[in-house]
């Protein structure tokens, strides 16, 4: 079964397990890019092709969530363009011809559309990366489910065995506070 662009966009924006399932379906549906790439870009190992494809899928996910994807071309065409650009960058690095990487319109848009990016200081972000590792299992899970995957509190409670949505919410905010204290 193949899924339409509208299906993917709706499901990814919905968040939660529906988003996770849509990402997986999109990944499988367009995986022919990696398969075709094995013949087309023989200089690259299949792991490198998968990495390039993963980066493209993750970028597309982000752009759908940020409303940057404007559906001027099909989702697969858009994904293919980002994938090709990543592959070309890899080939350039391999040939030691370190030209500036292609700056695709998608990447530009990706960076420019998130208003928070103007506020983030690199040294503080580095601190967050480090301290996230210290948070521990439950906090890590709750923040991932809630902030990254956009699960509802009830869905998180069901997924990780909390008694109810309220306890998930209160744990989530205590995890955020703990993280904030760790980085200050």
């Amino acid at each position: 079964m193949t899924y339409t662009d509208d299906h993917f966009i709706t499901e990814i924006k919905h968040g939660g397990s529906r988003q996770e399932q849509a990402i997986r379906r999109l990944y499988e549906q367009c995986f022919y890019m990696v398969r075709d790439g094995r013949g087309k870009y023989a200089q690259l190992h299949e792991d490198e092709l998968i990495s390039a494809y993963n980066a493209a899928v993750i970028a597309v996910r982000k752009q759908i969530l940020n409303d940057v994807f404007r559906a001027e071309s099909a989702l697969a065409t858009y994904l293919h363009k980002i994938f090709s650009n990543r592959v070309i960058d890899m080939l350039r690095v391999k040939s030691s011809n370190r030209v500036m990487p292609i700056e695709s319109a998608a990447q530009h848009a990706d960076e420019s559309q998130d208003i928070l990016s103007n506020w983030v200081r690199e040294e503080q972000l580095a601190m967050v990366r480090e301290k996230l590792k210290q948070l521990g299992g439950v906090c890590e899970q709750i923040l991932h489910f809630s902030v990254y995957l956009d699960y509802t509190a009830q869905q998180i409670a069901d997924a990780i065995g909390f008694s109810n949505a309220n306890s998930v919410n209160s744990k989530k905010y205590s995890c955020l506070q703990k993280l904030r204290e760790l980085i200050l």
Partner: protein
Amino acid sequence: MDAPLFDRMLQYRNRQMPEAERSAFEAQLKNDPAFAEEFATWAAIYTGIQEKGDETLDRELFALGKKLLAEDAEAPNTIAPQAPNLKARRVMLPRWAYAVAAFALLLLLAWPVYQRLNSPENAYASAETLFSEHFQQPSAPVVRDAAAEPWRDAYTQKHYPEAIAALEQRLADPNFSRRSEANLFLGLAYLGTKNAPKAIAAFQQVSPDSFEFEDAQWFQALALLQSGDIHQARILLQTIASHRGTARQAEAAQMLKQIK
């Protein structure tokens, strides 16, 4: 800002705040340095969680990708018994037969080129020659998930008039969203029918913000060459050649040297 206000930051980021509240929020960000500092801290936390999420997703997708390739590798084993027969049949042809076939094919391909190179017209390295040297009709976009589009089939089968009719019909619909892609392939279909002026008009409709714009510029330059407008073609090629890192940069620079 305390942790529940993390959600307000997300409302602001996701443009889900009512206009009045948004204005007040922005005013506070501008005028209250302590609030702005807190906001920056939460923005870093949010970004860090997103980055970590991307890493997790990358790992999960990598495992999925490896699994899919492993499944592909296993699939041919189901028809493996047939493979030796095919191989045996292939080696039954003597090697000289391959050599003769290759030579004949080479001759077949090279003869028209040789004749063309020797024609008196070629001495002028005309715009038409440049066009034919550099123009390759690209294939229709690879789309395996969307609903069938009649223009894509017609274009793939080189039925360019049908492709043109179907694309123009799509573009006549004001609600049709993929206008840049459609205009690019409309231009290419017109080039396929050697109607350069119409092709140029279509390429000019491709949005500069779209992914198709780089291709549209390239094919517009070729269409200008086909129509004999060397001056405009040169200007466009100079633009393409000046964009570092683009796919057509080197080819455009080479063409500029060739244009008389």
